[in-house]
């Protein structure tokens, strides 16, 4: 087996307060669920080692607080993220409506190189509950308009689709990482149409 370097991926979980971000993370990392709500204060940090595509990957997961007061303080941990999980509560229309703002805020604060292809995944959580307010169709449609973000309907309580969701974000983050490494490599020389020699000062950015 090729001795590839160990990969570390930084994943941020965002969404309104109470949608189940901490519950999803707890289900994923500790296989536990609690009905009790303990608001996240600031951000919680957890790590988990997983095998993705035959490769050991350490996921650094930042479970952020949805409360409004923490929102503009995200900068420090959004920066350098490899993937972002957007969560809403399928029983709350408001939490779904907030997705746009969460995504925009994230893209502004983290300023990834490639906003078009940045790895997102959207989770509609709490599908075990009866009082559904956001239809699958509606959620899927939103995801399509945002460059086909993968969408999962999850239940942190009953461990539905939680593994799959985290695996998907890990995979797309790895894919993007590969791509970026490739892109970072000095590319072939592209000659100008009028064949002026490239003296390296052409870029004034």
């Amino acid at each position, binding site marked *: 087996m090729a001795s590839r370097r160990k990969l570390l991926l930084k994943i941020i979980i965002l969404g309104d307060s109470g949608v189940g971000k901490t519950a999803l993370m707890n289900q994923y990392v500790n296989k536990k669920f609690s009905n009790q709500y303990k608001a996240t*204060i600031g*951000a*919680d*940090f*957890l790590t988990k080692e997983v095998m993705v595509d035959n490769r050991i990957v350490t996921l650094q997961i930042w479970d952020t607080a949805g*409360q409004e*007061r923490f929102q503009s*303080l995200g900068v*420090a941990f959004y920066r350098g993220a490899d993937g972002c999980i957007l969560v809403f509560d399928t029983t709350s229309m408001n939490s779904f409506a907030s997705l746009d703002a969460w995504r925009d805020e994230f893209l502004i604060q983290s300023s990834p190189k490639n906003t078009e292809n940045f790895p997102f995944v959207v989770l509609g959580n709490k599908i075990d509950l009866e009082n559904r307010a956001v239809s699958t169709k509606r959620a899927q449609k939103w995801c399509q308009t945002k460059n086909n973000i993968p969408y999962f309907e999850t239940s942190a309580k009953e461990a539905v689709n939680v593994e799959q969701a985290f695996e998907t974000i890990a995979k797309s983050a790895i894919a993007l990482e590969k791509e970026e490494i490739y892109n970072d490599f000095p590319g072939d020389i592209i000659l100008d149409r009028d064949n002026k020699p490239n003296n390296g000062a052409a870029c004034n950015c």
Partner: protein
Amino acid sequence: MSSSAPGGLEGPFKFPNSPEPQSSSSSFVVPYIEEERPESPAKHGLDEKDFEKLVLGSDFVDESNVDEDCNVAQELKKYKYNIFVLSSAGKPVYSRYGNEDKLSTLFGVMQVLVSFIQDSNDVLKSIRCNGCTFTFLSKGPLILVSVAKTQQSDTQLLSQLTYVYNQVISVVTLSRLTKIFEQKCNYDLRRLLSGSERLIDQLLVFMETDYAFLLGAVRVLPLAPTARDDISNIIVSACSKIKNLVFALLIANNQLITLVRMKKYELQPSDLHLLFNLVNSSESFKTAESWTPICLPLFNPSGFLHCHVSYLSEDCQACLMLLTVDHDLFYTLSTAKQKIVETLRRKGSLKDINDALALKPISASELGIYGLRHFMCKSRKHPQFWSSRVDTPYDTPEEVEHLMSLYQNLHQHVHHPTRPLKLCYQQMDSEIMLGHITAEYEFYFTFEPLVTKSDAISAAGRLPSVWLKDDEEKKKFIFTDPTF
């Protein structure tokens, strides 16, 4: 007990166009003005009728507006200590009980009261009527009001409001608060505070039940000085190279184990209380390493410190807080924390902490001093205190509350603003209270009611030598001052 409102309120105090009550349905009469007429408002040119009108305003009297749970009169009468926070525009920010939205009339009235007096370049400090004290604190864009049926002094009531104000600042910072209201004076601050009401709720309970606030000090986890020094040294050596780390503190079960600080910077007791309160009211810290902003108003009201919060380990429930001004320091602090825990474990410090946590504080009766029920001791040099276990006859929550009110009363006499006392003896209905200030300590005692004055005073004099003998003093208080 004097019942005059403090502060000279000389200015004219009139109410333009106070709405006439449409009916005087008795169920909406605010209870505290039913029997006795309010003294203070009358003193300051506000006649009773005006006051009544103002407080009862037309909305209050319109029955259709008032359902069972928003009956303001009931609301005010129901609680021993209630507190309201509103913006200077009169918008609700927080109320301890009930739904702020339903109390909006009351908030309006409070705003009017405060701003009327402000208009005459004066400050409304308190109104006392029918066993209730309304205390007002107007700070920047916020107005804080408490309604207390307790016997606390004005200073104590004001200090509670200041704590709540500081708690709000700690969540949003003063600079943000000021800026927000400069831009939008009708801003609904509940948006920013949502989720942190719990911090205020908890702070109020903390103030009512813990002597720390009354004494302006923190509890210390008793530890042998060498054990404590080991812990401090381990923290210092793991952190000394980290730039911008301002404070490191270790807290367990509401007691301070150690506090290491950057030279030049100190942590005031009231800021420490806010940190204790944060830890006490945030269950979520127990499950993961957290990174959270917190503003400490006395340290610096205009900005956030970033705090790495984590419990040491599954088998040692002490909480480590590393506070820095650098928002990018998380990973550095996370590594330092791991190093700290490893070393603490290797040197046996985790065991020392656990052993100390397992020991309950002694009961006053174990000291063999006749008639002594309870006592506490505060260091005058360091903001630290110790109190004996609360024991029989203070077994019920009501009894514990009663004991608190006795100490509040004793404390206010000992620390009288103009006439402080070195020795204060109070014969109360069912106990004797004694305050004794020595060069190093403040002692507060509760005795059986039948103990004679001379016995009580001589016991008080003897206690330090019994209780602080050998190395006990150095275990119960932290005299060292470790720095990075």
